C-alpha cells in the first residue's frame, strides 16, 4: 500500500493588495482620536503635580506613581476589581455556553427569536436597567418581600458584591453568547455524530470535541466580558453603593471629589497596564490550548 498523494495541499496565499490596507484608515483614525490621544493625554497628566487651584501644575513628577504603588489600598482595589471581573466572566461563561449552543444549533427561524431575546438586555439603557434591578434586589424589594412572605429571612442582594455581579452578568451575557455561538455555529454538527458513533456519550463529546473547537469563541467572549466588567462604572456605583469599590469608581472619585487629576490619571494608567498583563497572559495560555485550530 503506497500513498499516491503525498504532501499537503499548499496553503492558499493571501493576495497582497495595497488598496485593501487603505480600508482600515477610517477605523485607525477613530481609534487614534478617541483612544490613543486621550490615553497619551492621560499619561501626560499623570506625570504632573497635583494642585488645588488648577487641574494640575505643569511640573513633571513621578510622585503620583510612587505614592500609589506604595499604598496597599491601591492594590486592594485593583485586586477587588480584577476579582469582580473574573467572577462576572466565569458566571457569564457558565450561563452563556448552553444558551450559545442552543442558539447555534437552533433552526433558522428559532435562531432569530433567540437572538432578540439574548440581546434584549442591551435594548434598555444602562440606568433604567440598573434601576430595575434595584427595585428587585433592594432590602424592601420584590425578591426580599417574597422571601419574607414565605416566612424566610431576607437576603442582602444589593450594595454588595452580589448585587454588582447580578447587574454585570445580566448586561454582559449577550456579548458572551454571541461570541461563543459564532464559533459553535462553525463547528460541523457531523463532528458530534462522528464522536458519538465512535463511542463517546453526549457529555464526553462535549468535552472532547465541542468545547475544544469552541475555544476561540470562549477566548473572545471572556476577554470582551472581562475588559468591559473591570472598566464598568454605572452598575458598580448604583448596585454596589459605596461598599463596592472598583478602580473606575475610585478614579472618578479621585478626579471629581478630591480634584486630583494627576493622581486619578496615574491610577488609570497603572490599572490599564495591569489589565494588559492579565489579559495578555490569559490570551497566551488559551492560545496554547487551542493551537491546532
Amino acid at each position, binding site marked *: 500500500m503506497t*500513498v*499516491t*498523494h503525498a504532501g499537503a495541499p499548499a496553503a492558499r496565499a493571501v493576495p497582497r493588495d495595497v488598496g485593501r490596507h487603505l480600508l482600515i484608515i477610517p477605523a485607525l483614525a477613530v481609534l487614534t482620536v478617541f483612544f490613543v490621544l486621550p490615553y497619551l493625554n492621560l499619561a501626560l497628566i499623570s506625570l504632573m503635580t497635583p494642585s488645588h487651584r488648577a487641574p494640575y501644575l505643569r511640573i513633571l513628577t513621578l510622585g503620583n506613581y510612587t505614592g500609589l504603588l506604595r499604598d496597599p489600598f491601591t492594590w486592594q482595589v485593583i485586586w477587588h476589581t480584577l476579582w469582580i471581573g473574573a467572577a462576572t466572566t466565569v458566571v457569564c461563561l457558565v450561563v452563556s455556553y448552553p444558551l450559545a449552543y442552543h442558539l447555534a444549533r437552533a433552526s433558522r427561524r428559532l435562531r432569530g427569536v433567540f437572538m432578540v431575546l439574548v440581546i434584549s438586555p442591551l435594548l434598555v439603557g444602562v440606568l433604567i436597567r440598573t434601576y430595575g434591578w434595584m427595585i428587585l434586589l433592594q432590602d424592601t424589594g420584590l425578591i426580599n418581600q417574597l422571601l419574607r412572605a414565605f416566612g424566610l429571612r431576607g437576603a442582602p442582594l444589593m450594595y454588595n458584591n452580589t448585587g454588582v455581579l447580578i447587574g454585570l452578568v445580566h448586561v454582559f451575557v449577550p456579548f458572551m453568547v454571541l461570541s461563543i455561538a459564532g464559533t459553535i455555529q462553525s463547528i460541523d454538527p457531523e463532528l458530534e*455524530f462522528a464522536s458519538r458513533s465512535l*463511542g463517546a456519550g453526549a457529555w*464526553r463529546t462535549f468535552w472532547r470535541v465541542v468545547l*475544544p473547537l469552541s475555544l476561540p469563541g470562549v477566548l473572545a467572549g471572556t476577554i470582551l466580558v472581562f475588559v468591559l466588567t473591570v472598566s464598568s462604572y454605572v452598575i458598580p456605583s448604583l448596585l454596589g453603593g459605596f461598599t463596592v469599590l472598583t478602580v473606575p469608581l475610585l478614579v472618578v472619585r479621585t478626579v471629581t471629589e478630591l480634584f486630583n487629576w494627576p493622581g486619578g490619571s496615574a491610577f488609570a494608567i497603572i490599572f490599564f497596564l495591569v489589565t494588559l498583563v492579565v489579559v495578555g497572559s490569559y490570551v497566551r495560555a488559551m492560545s496554547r490550548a*487551542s493551537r491546532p485550530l
Partner: protein
Amino acid sequence: MAQITLDHLTKRFGDAAAVQDLTLELGSGELVALLGPSGCGKTTTLRMIAGFETPTEGRVRLGDLDVTDAPPEKRNCGMVFQNYALFPHLTVEQNVAFGLEMRGVGRTEVRRRAGEILDKVGLRGLSGRYPRQLSGGQQQRTALARALVINPSVLLLDEPLANLDAKLREEMRFFIRSLQQEFHITTLYVTHDQAEALVLADRVAVLMNGVLQQYDSPERVYQRPRSAAVAGFIGLTNLIPGRVRACAGDRVVLDTAGGHVSSLGDASLREGADALLSIRPEHLELGRPDSSPEDGRNRMRGTIRERTFLGALIDFRVDVGRDLVLRVQGRVSASERVGDAVAVSFDPAAGWVLPRGGT
C-alpha cells in the same frame, strides 16, 4: 445470520416520508450498496442505523440486538461521513485513537492499534498531521481507519467517494473493497453513483422516493430491473413501449412501433398489458438493412440521426420510426454514417420487458 436487519422501517419528517416501510437484510460480511438519486432517503436510512435519527416506525437490528432505541455510542457502528468529519483539532493519529480511548483501551494498546491500522491504510508517515494538512484522499483514508480501528460490528459509508476526483475515486473503490474483504465486515455503502454500486457491491438495494425498488445482485439489477425507474437509473437503456402479444413463463412477445419483438420479461406480465422493453445500447447491433435475419434475432429498420465518438465506443441515435429513437453503442470501427439506413438487431435474451408504469 443477518448482521443488519431493517424491519419495516419508516421515517417521516412532518408529513413527508423520507423512508417508507423499508425492509432489508444484510448478511455477515456482505457489502450492500444502497443506491438511489439524491433525496431518495438513503442517507436517512444510514443515519437511522447509526442512531442519529429515530425511525418513526419499524425496528433496526444489528446482529441479534435490537438497537432501535439505543444511542449511537452504544451501537458500535463504524461510520464514514461524506465530508469525513475528521476532528480538526486532533492529529491523524489522535483521530484514529479517539474511538479506542472512548472504549477505555490502555495507552500503549491504543498506540499499537492506531499504528497498525494507519500502516494498513498507508498513512503511517502522516500520523502527526492535522486533517487540514491532508489531501482529500488522505482524509478519506483517515476516516476509514478511524471507523475500522474500533472493530465495529458494521461499517456504514455515506457517499465516501463523492468528494474525490474521478481518478482517485476509481482507486479508492478497490481499496475500500479490499479493506472490507480483509476485515470481513458487513458494510452498507450509500451512493448515488450506479457505476460505483455495481462495481463494489455484493448486492444492490435501489431506493427511490423512500421506497425500496429492488434488492438484487448487481447483475440482476442491471439486466433484470424490476421497474422502468430502476432500468432508467442504472446505466443507459432504451425503453420501447409496447403491448404484450403473448407470454409464457419469462418469454414475452411484444407489439412495438418497430414490429414484433420477442424477449425475456417479468413473470407477472399478462397478455394485452401495456409494457416497456428495456434494451441496453451495448446489446443493440447495427447491420445492413437488407441483411438476412439471423436466427431468432429481433430486427428493426431505421436511419442514423446522430453519431458521437466516445473514445472506446461510438454512440449512435437511430430513428426507427414513430418517434422512437434508439441509442446504439458500437465499436469504433463501425463504418455507418449519419443518414445511413440500417437494421438494428438484438438477441431476445438481452432484452427485458417490464410492466408499464409499474412500481
